[in-house]
């Protein structure tokens, strides 16, 4: 029974002990570490990031609404003069995507998840892909001038 509480224990020592307790009661799962390490393989040095600039799911008017079947979400990405507009329609556990790229011509487009990539046919800078599993994805684009662009990751 001795030493359950030690009045002289410093804040740092108490925090260190609490940390050990967290590490026993709620350890970081090994798959989280493995997964985070593996993400590095998704990075390529010469690609340009089109940043997320707008996401209708993040807009204040929507905070109190409950999302549901058939909802359409609009997400925009930009880098320089290039804009990527992504429309996501929710359909159960899958998503239907329509994307439009302006400011550049496109030679190729792919949808990438942390696990795989899928090429999409591009027609007049618009491309569609139905039935993508819900989760993280980004678009990977090759412009007609040979630049590699990727969008920010979004969870759809």
């Amino acid at each position, binding site marked *: 029974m001795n030493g359950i509480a030690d009045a002289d224990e410093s804040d740092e020592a108490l925090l260190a002990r609490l940390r050990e307790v967290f590490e026993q009661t709620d350890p970081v799962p090994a798959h989280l570490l493995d997964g985070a390490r593996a993400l590095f393989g*998704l990075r390529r040095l010469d690609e340009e990031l089109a940043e997320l600039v707008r996401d209708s799911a993040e807009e204040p008017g929507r905070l109190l609404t409950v999302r549901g079947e058939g909802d359409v979400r609009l997400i925009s990405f930009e880098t320089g003069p290039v804009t990527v507009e992504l429309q996501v329609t929710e359909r159960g556990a899958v998503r239907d995507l329509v994307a439009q790229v302006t400011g550049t011509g496109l030679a190729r487009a792919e949808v990438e998840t942390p696990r795989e990539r899928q090429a999409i046919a591009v027609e007049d800078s618009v491309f569609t892909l139905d039935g993508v599993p819900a989760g993280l994805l980004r678009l990977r684009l090759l412009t007609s001038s040979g630049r590699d662009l990727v969008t920010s990751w979004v969870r759809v």
Partner: protein
Amino acid sequence: MTDTFSATASLLGRAAQGDQRAWNDLVVQHTSLLHAVARSFRLDAADVADVVQTTWLRLLEHLDRIEDPTRLVGWLVTTARRESLRVLRRGGRERPSAEDFVLDRADDADPVDAGMLRDERDRALWEAYRALPDRCRQLLRIAVYEPRAYEEISAVLGMPVGSIGPTRRRCLTQLRALLTGSVVEDEDGGAGEEART
């Protein structure tokens, strides 16, 4: 401080150049903290995994844009907080204030496995922690990893930086009081019930 700075700067620089080992080191150093941030929002295991993964992906896409390595921890924590709030919103459960949300939320996502704690002192500490007010629990859950990172903690809790030190002190005082005053033997192993005086 300087050592930490140069070590972090070097890891970021090497990772930006494509060095997987530098990236692994960053992951090993900071995943516990990100896990704790997501947990402090009472997310369940699957949502915590989403937040941690997304946060690392955000760093990956911004590796060559982190201008100040001393702010890496702050950057990661802020990103993990934003992703945690996004996950909460995704469930259609958003309230006007994130803080209200955290305080209102039932405690079902908080893992309880006091049975794993064979050491009596650890069990007493765990039960005392669980008897603390939510705000203290959230603060301490993060403070154990970055005890001096008041700015980062304030970002997660949405509290002014100046109040973090005093709040931390008050929380530790309460924790000690629970440890000395109201520790009860809990034979059924259920740490879910709080020790009360």
